[in-house]
């Protein structure tokens, strides 16, 4: 089966679906992986504050050649620049900002999300351990926790599950999952289908009917 034979969003289109949820002036924390591509895709006139948990609110872009500062990095340890109105702070304040509910959106990658909104994305037993970093804190507190991930794992099974099999990053914490096939809200043992990528059928999700709630979406956020 080739991907071109199947209707689905590209990675860029998935991220554009996420960006469409942002409102002017909102604050966003972006996890490592796919979400780090979001700033490049953001419309230049969308006035938002990107938070980086190492202690920056107002990440802008990349420094010009030869102008990088070793003390100006994001949580991925990459050199960055800041926008007007940016601020620096210590790590306790940074995570307080997150845990205290002051950040509007947190966008993370995922390995599994279950029907209760629990997320697994930090460890696969038997594989290399990297540590959870800030992921366990980030999923508790942001007003909307959005997971962006591929719909299927390497064995071809949906990563949207009734119950996560992998060790959890957080329990009942995910508001929205964006995959190449659609947008889903896990709640109360089911996934509400909020949107499907053009040409994608419910069957293509490979989820049992008992896991799905397919009410009509208002198309407006919050869903």
């Amino acid at each position, binding site marked *: 089966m080739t991907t071109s034979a199947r209707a689905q969003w590209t990675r860029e289109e998935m991220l554009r679906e996420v960006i469409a949820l942002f409102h002017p002036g909102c604050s966003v924390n972006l996890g490592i992986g796919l979400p780090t591509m979001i700033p490049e895709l953001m419309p230049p006139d969308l006035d938002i504050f990107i938070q980086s948990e190492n202690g920056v609110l107002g990440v802008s872009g990349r*420094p010009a050649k030869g102008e990088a500062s070793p003390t100006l990095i994001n949580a991925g340890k990459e050199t960055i620049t800041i926008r007007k109105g940016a601020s620096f702070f210590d790590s306790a304040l940074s995570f*307080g900002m997150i845990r205290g509910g002051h950040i509007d959106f947190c966008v993370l990658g995922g390995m599994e999300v279950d029907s209760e909104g629990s997320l697994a994305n930090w460890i696969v037993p038997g594989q290399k351990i990297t540590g959870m970093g800030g992921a366990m804190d980030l999923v508790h507190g942001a007003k909307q926790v959005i997971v962006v991930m591929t719909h299927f794992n390497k064995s071809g099974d949906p990563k949207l599950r009734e119950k996560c099999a992998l060790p959890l990053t957080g329990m009942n914490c995910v508001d929205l999952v964006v995959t190449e096939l659609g947008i889903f809200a896990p709640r109360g043992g089911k996934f509400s289908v909020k949107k499907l990528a053009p040409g994608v059928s419910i069957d293509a999700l490979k989820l049992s009917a008992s896991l799905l709630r397919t009410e009509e979406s208002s198309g407006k956020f919050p869903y």
Partner: protein
Amino acid sequence: MTRHGRGKVFANAIDALTDFESGMTVMSGGFGLCGIPENSIDAIAAMPVKDLTVISNNIGNSGRGLVKLLRNRQIKNAVCSYVGGNPDLEQQMLADEVHVTLVPQGTFSERIRAAGLGIRAFYTPTGAGTMVAEGKEVRVFDKPCVLELPLHADFAIIKAQRGDVFGNLWFKEAARNFSPLMAMAAKVTVVEVEELVPMGEIPAEDVHLPGIFVQRIYQGKNYRNDIEILKEAP
């Protein structure tokens, strides 16, 4: 813990760390390689101390920083949130040479802050329902929360861009990270600065950490200030 009659200013790292001993717990500031206390790390790497418990977000990265202590086999216990990008630590962890305790980064920061500020324990939703909560008290408020305890240390080694002789500190850009918290949490805080200035040079409004939390300060030298991952605009 300051030396009576001489104030807080020390000549260098070796002078400031003379009573640092094997078996001690030391906190080290820095996020990856950003804001790490380069001179104090080098001094400890050159000392015959071992069986250390090191509390630091990454325990060095990319073969640099605290990795020197790992390679010298000076570290017995490591408390951190992230070991990715640190193959030395991963390897010693798998070989059971270093006992690693992984702590979620926000809980890590808050436990250090709590130690410095007299908080005996706190409940946080972070980690509830995960491996992190195993063996800990969990109490339901609006949602399940885990009881977490403070993280104390014998020494903290931190770096600031600018500091005065009282220990008032000013950090550059995002180099602040865990450093002011660690300064508050340790019995003896040893600060190295790129610029040691007289009192009054840092305007009171711009002091990021009041000098009351600092016991020893010295003018550092030969800073590398490594960039870990250089990303530039196309």
